[in-house]
C-alpha cells in the first residue's frame, strides 16, 4: 500500500516536473529577447546602440541661460518662431507680436523691429499698396554676413524683406515674382540664402518643393525632390480601383518641406515632418537630390509602431561648421545631433514642465559652440552650453571632420571615460589605430564599436601580419600537401604499371 502510494507520488512529481519544463520552454519562446526599447526608461538621456536598443547616455548640452520677457525692456513678447545667431548677434522672430528682436552677446536687447524704416530713418511706404511696411506674422529670419543683410520671411504679407544687418534699415522688398509658375502660394515661412545670393524659401504645405529665387528676386525654379513613400497595399488598391474610384482617392502629393538651413559649402539642408516621406532630412545638391549620408538612418527616435512610441517630427535643423547637424523634434522635444556621416552623436532635451524643458519647440540654431532653442508657447529662447562630455564628443567630431585624427582620438578617449555607452567613440579610436597600422588594438576597438567594415580592414592587415610571421609553417604545410599528392599519384601509377606489366 505504502509503496503504491509512494510510486503514485513520484509519478505525480514527475508529471509536475514535465509540466514545469514545458512551461519554461513555452515561456522562453514567448519572452521578448533581451532588453526592451526606450519604452520604460526613466532616464531622459539615452542613445541607440547598434541593435537599436536605448542605452543610458550623458547629455552633450545643458541649459545655461534663458531669454524671455525679462530681457525685453518692456517690448511685448508672445511667441518665438525662428532663431538665427551669428557674429555675436541673436535674431529672434516673434510671429504673434510680429517683431524681429535682436540681442547682443550679453543677451541684451539691441533693437526690436516691427515698423521698417529706410536709410534716412524715415518710415517706408510701399508704393504699390500705399501702406507702411509693417511685419505681419513673420515666421523666419536669416542673416547673410557676407552681404550684411537680414532676410525676414514676412509670411503674413507674402513677401521677403531684406534689411541691412548693421543699421537695420530696409534695403529691398521681394514679393511674389511675376514669372513664378506652379500652384504654390508665395507665403515664405523659412528662408536661407546661399553664397551666390540665391534665396531659398520654404512654404508650409508647398508640395512643389522649396522656392528658389535669383538674387534679384526673380523666380528660378522649385528646388528639391521629396518622393512620397509608396506601399504595396496602396499599389494593389490602385490596380483594383476603377477610374471614378481613383479620382475620389485623391492625389498623393510629394511631402512638403517645413524648414531649411544651409551649410558653409552652400548645400541646403531641409526637413520634413510628413510621415509619408521617404527621408526626413535632406542635404540637397545643386540638382536638388538628397546627398545626405546614411539618410535612411537619420530618423530621430527609432519607431516600430509599438505602444507608447512616437515618431520624431522634425521642425528645424541647424548645421554646424564641421558638418554635424542638430535636429529638433517636436513630438518629444528632443534634439538629435548627428555627425556628417549620419551617425547619431547625442540626444538631449525633452517636453515637460520643469526648467529647461520645452512646450512647443520651434527652432534651433548653433551659436558658436552653444545651441539656441526657441519655444513658441513659453515664448522663451533657451541657450544650451556644452557639458564636459559634449565638449569631448563634439570636439572629436570637429577634429575628425578636419582630418586631425590624433586630436580626435584623444578627445574620443576622454568622451569614453565619461560615457562608456558612446559607441561612435570606439569605432573612431579603432579607425585611428587602423591608420597607424596597429591592427590588433584597432580590431578590439572596432569590435566594441560594431564597425564591421573597418574591422574587416583591420583584420585584413592583422591576418597578413600573422601569415608573414608564420610563413614557414604555411610553406611547410603546402609543401607537404603537394608532396603527398605527387607521391600518391606516383604510387597509383606504379600500381597500374605493375598490373599492366
Amino acid at each position, binding site marked *: 500500500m505504502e509503496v503504491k502510494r509512494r510510486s503514485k507520488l513520484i509519478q505525480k512529481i514527475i508529471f509536475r516536473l514535465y509540466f514545469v519544463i514545458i512551461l519554461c*520552454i513555452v515561456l522562453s519562446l514567448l519572452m521578448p*529577447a*533581451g*532588453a526592451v526599447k526606450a519604452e520604460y526608461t526613466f532616464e531622459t538621456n539615452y542613445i541607440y546602440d547598434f541593435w537599436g536598443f536605448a542605452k543610458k547616455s550623458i547629455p552633450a548640452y545643458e541649459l545655461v541661460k534663458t531669454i524671455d520677457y525679462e530681457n525685453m525692456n518692456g517690448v511685448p513678447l508672445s511667441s518665438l518662431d525662428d532663431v538665427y545667431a551669428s557674429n555675436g548677434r541673436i535674431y529672434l522672430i516673434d510671429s504673434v507680436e510680429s517683431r524681429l528682436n535682436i540681442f547682443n552677446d550679453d543677451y541684451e536687447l539691441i533693437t526690436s523691429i516691427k515698423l521698417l524704416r529706410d536709410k534716412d530713418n524715415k518710415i517706408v511706404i510701399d508704393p504699390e499698396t500705399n501702406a507702411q511696411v509693417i511685419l505681419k506674422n513673420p515666421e523666419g529670419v536669416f542673416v547673410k554676413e557676407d552681404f550684411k543683410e537680414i532676410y525676414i520671411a514676412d509670411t503674413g504679407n507674402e513677401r521677403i524683406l531684406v534689411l541691412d544687418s548693421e543699421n537695420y534699415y530696409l534695403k529691398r522688398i521681394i514679393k511674389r515674382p511675376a514669372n513664378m509658375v506652379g500652384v504654390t502660394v508665395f507665403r515664405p515661412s523659412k528662408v536661407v540664402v546661399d553664397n551666390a545670393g540665391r534665396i531659398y524659401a520654404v512654404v508650409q504645405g508647398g508640395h512643389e518643393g522649396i522656392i528658389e529665387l535669383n538674387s534679384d528676386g526673380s523666380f528660378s525654379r522649385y528646388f528639391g525632390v521629396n518622393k512620397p513613400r509608396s506601399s504595396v497595399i496602396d499599389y494593389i488598391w490602385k490596380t483594383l480601383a476603377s477610374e471614378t474610384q481613383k479620382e475620389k482617392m485623391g492625389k498623393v502629393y510629394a511631402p512638403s518641406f517645413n524648414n531649411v538651413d544651409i551649410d558653409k559649402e552652400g548645400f541646403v539642408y531641409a526637413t520634413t515632418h510628413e510621415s509619408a516621406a521617404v527621408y526626413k532630412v535632406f542635404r540637397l545638391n545643386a540638382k536638388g537630390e538628397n546627398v545626405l549620408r546614411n539618410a535612411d538612418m537619420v530618423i530621430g527616435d527609432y519607431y516600430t509602431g509599438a505602444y507608447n512610441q512616437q515618431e520624431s517630427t522634425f521642425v528645424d535643423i541647424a548645421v554646424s561648421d564641421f558638418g554635424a547637424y542638430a535636429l529638433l523634434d517636436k513630438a518629444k522635444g528632443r534634439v538629435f545631433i548627428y555627425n556628417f556621416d549620419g551617425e547619431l552623436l547625442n540626444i538631449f532635451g525633452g517636453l515637460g514642465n520643469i526648467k529647461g524643458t520645452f512646450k512647443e519647440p520651434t527652432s534651433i540654431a548653433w551659436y558658436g559652440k552653444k545651441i539656441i532653442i526657441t519655444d513658441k508657447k513659453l515664448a522663451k529662447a533657451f541657450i544650451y552650453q556644452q557639458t564636459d562630455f559634449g565638449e569631448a564628443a563634439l570636439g572629436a567630431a570637429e577634429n575628425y571632420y578636419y582630418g586631425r585624427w590624433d586630436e580626435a582620438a584623444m578627445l574620443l578617449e576622454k568622451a569614453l571615460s565619461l560615457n562608456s555607452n558612446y559607441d561612435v567613440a570606439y569605432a573612431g579610436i579603432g579607425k585611428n589605430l587602423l591608420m597607424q597600422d596597429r591592427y590588433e588594438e584597432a580590431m578590439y576597438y572596432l*569590435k566594441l564599436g560594431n564597425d564591421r567594415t573597418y574591422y*574587416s580592414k583591420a*583584420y*585584413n592587415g592583422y*591576418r597578413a601580419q600573422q601569415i608573414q610571421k608564420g610563413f614557414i609553417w604555411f610553406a611547410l604545410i603546402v609543401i607537404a600537401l603537394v608532396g603527398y599528392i605527387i607521391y600518391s599519384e606516383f604510387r597509383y601509377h606504379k600500381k597500374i604499371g605493375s598490373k599492366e606489366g
Partner: protein
Amino acid sequence: MLKQLIYVNLHPFDGFYQTSRSEKKGKYLVATVLLVIYGILQIIAYQYTGFIMNYQPIFMMNSIRIFLLALLPIVLFVVSNWSITTILEGSGSIGDIYIVVCYSLFPKIVFDLIGVIVSNFIISEEIPILQAFMAIGTVWFCFLIFAGLCVVHEYTVFTNIIMIILTFVAAIIIIFLAMLYFTILIKTINFVITVINEFFRRW
C-alpha cells in the same frame, strides 16, 4: 551506421529506398541525433560565427529559443508533408518522412559547421565566397529531401513538386490554426480572470 548515412547522402534514391525498407532500429536514433546536432549547430552559429558575418546581439542569446526555432520548421514540414501525402496516396509513413528529412540535414550540418569555423578567418570581401560554399550544403539538403520524398512516397517528380507546394500550404494552415488556438486560449484565460476579479470585487 555512419557508413549508411554517407551512402544515403551520396546515393539518395538508392539509399532512401534501402532505409525505408530496412528493419534496423538504429535509423531513428541516427535521425534524431542529426536533428539535435542541427539544433545545437544553430546555437553554435549564433555565438561563434565570425564577427564580420555575425550581426546577432550575442549578449542576449537564448539558446533554448534558438534550438526550438531551428527545429520548428523541420517538425512542421514533417507533419504537414505527412498530412498531405496520407490523403493523396503517398506510401511513406511519418517515420519515413522523418528519416528522409533528418538524414538530408547531414550535408547542411557539415557545410554550415565548416562555414562557422572559416567565417572567423575571413574579411568582408571574402564573404560571398563563403556564402557560395555554404549554399552548396543547402542545395544538397534540398535535393536530398526532394529525392527522398520521391522515393518513400513513390511519386513521380512532377507529383512530388505539387506535393511539396501543398505541404507549404498545409504548413501555413497549421500555423494559422495554432495562432488561432493560442489567441483564443489567452482570451479565455483573460475572461476567466476578469470574471473572478469582478466576483471578488463585488463580494
